[in-house]
C-alpha cells in the first residue's frame, strides 16, 4: 500500500502488479480519476488525510478482503494534496485464482476505502473551496458486504 502526494502511472503499476503474480488467473484493477464539475470549473480536488491512521485503516481493509475472498495479492495506492481534474487519485488491484474473487474483493476495497479510510476531499473552484460531503449511498454500500 502507498499513500503519496506524487502522481503515479497506473498502467505501469498494474503491469508490475500482474507480472509479480505467479499463480493468479485473474487480476482486476480500478483507477479513480478527479472528475471535473458539471460544466467545468474545478481547479483542484484537495485531499487531506490522517497520516498513520490512513495506513492502518487501509491495511485493515486489505486484511479483511484477504480473509473474505480467495485472494493472492492486493495493492492500494491513494494520493493526497491538490489534484487537478483528470489526475489519477487512487487505484486498487486484486489478484486471485479466479475472476469472481478478484472482482468482488476490488469492489469491497473501493467501498471501504471511500467511507473507512481517513481521507477528506475539498473542491477548489474560482468561487472558493467546499468540502465534499459523504453520501448516504456510500455508507449504504458497506451494508451489502
Amino acid at each position, binding site marked *: 500500500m502507498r499513500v503519496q502526494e506524487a502522481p503515479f502511472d497506473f498502467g505501469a503499476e498494474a503491469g508490475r502488479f500482474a507480472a509479480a503474480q505467479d499463480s493468479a488467473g485473474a487480476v482486476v484493477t480500478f483507477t479513480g480519476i478527479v472528475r471535473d464539475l458539471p460544466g467545468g470549473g474545478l481547479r483542484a480536488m484537495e485531499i487531506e488525510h*490522517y497520516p498513520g491512521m490512513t495506513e492502518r485503516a487501509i491495511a485493515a481493509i486489505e486484511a479483511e478482503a484477504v480473509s473474505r475472498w480467495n485472494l493472492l495479492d492486493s495493492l492500494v495506492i491513494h494520493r493526497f494534496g491538490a489534484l487537478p481534474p483528470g489526475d489519477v487519485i487512487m487505484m486498487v488491484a486484486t489478484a486471485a485464482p479466479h475472476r469472481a474473487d478478484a472482482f468482488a474483493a476490488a469492489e469491497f476495497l473501493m467501498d471501504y476505502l*471511500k*467511507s473507512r479510510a481517513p481521507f*477528506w476531499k475539498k473542491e477548489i473552484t474560482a468561487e472558493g473551496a467546499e468540502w465534499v460531503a459523504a453520501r448516504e449511498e456510500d*455508507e449504504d454500500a458497506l451494508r451489502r458486504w
Partner: protein
Amino acid sequence: MIEVLYFAWVRERIGIPRETVETGAKTVAGLVDELRAREERYAAAFADTSALRVALDQELADFDASLKGVREVAFFPPMTGG
C-alpha cells in the same frame, strides 16, 4: 495529557490541526463537553456530533468510548476517500 487532532472542516473551524489537552474526562463525550465549553469556535465545531467521527489511537470509535489509556484522539467529518 492527551493529543487531540482535528481534520477537514473540524480543523478549519477550530483553527488548529492538533493540540495537547489536559483533561479529566472519562469518555470521548466528556472530552467533547470540555472542549465545547472552552470557546465559541469549539462549540461551533462540536455543535452536532452526529456529523462527526472520532478515532482513538487511530482506530474508529464511538463517542461513549472510554479514554482510559488513550494517547491520541482525532475528530473529523465522515470520510470521503476513493
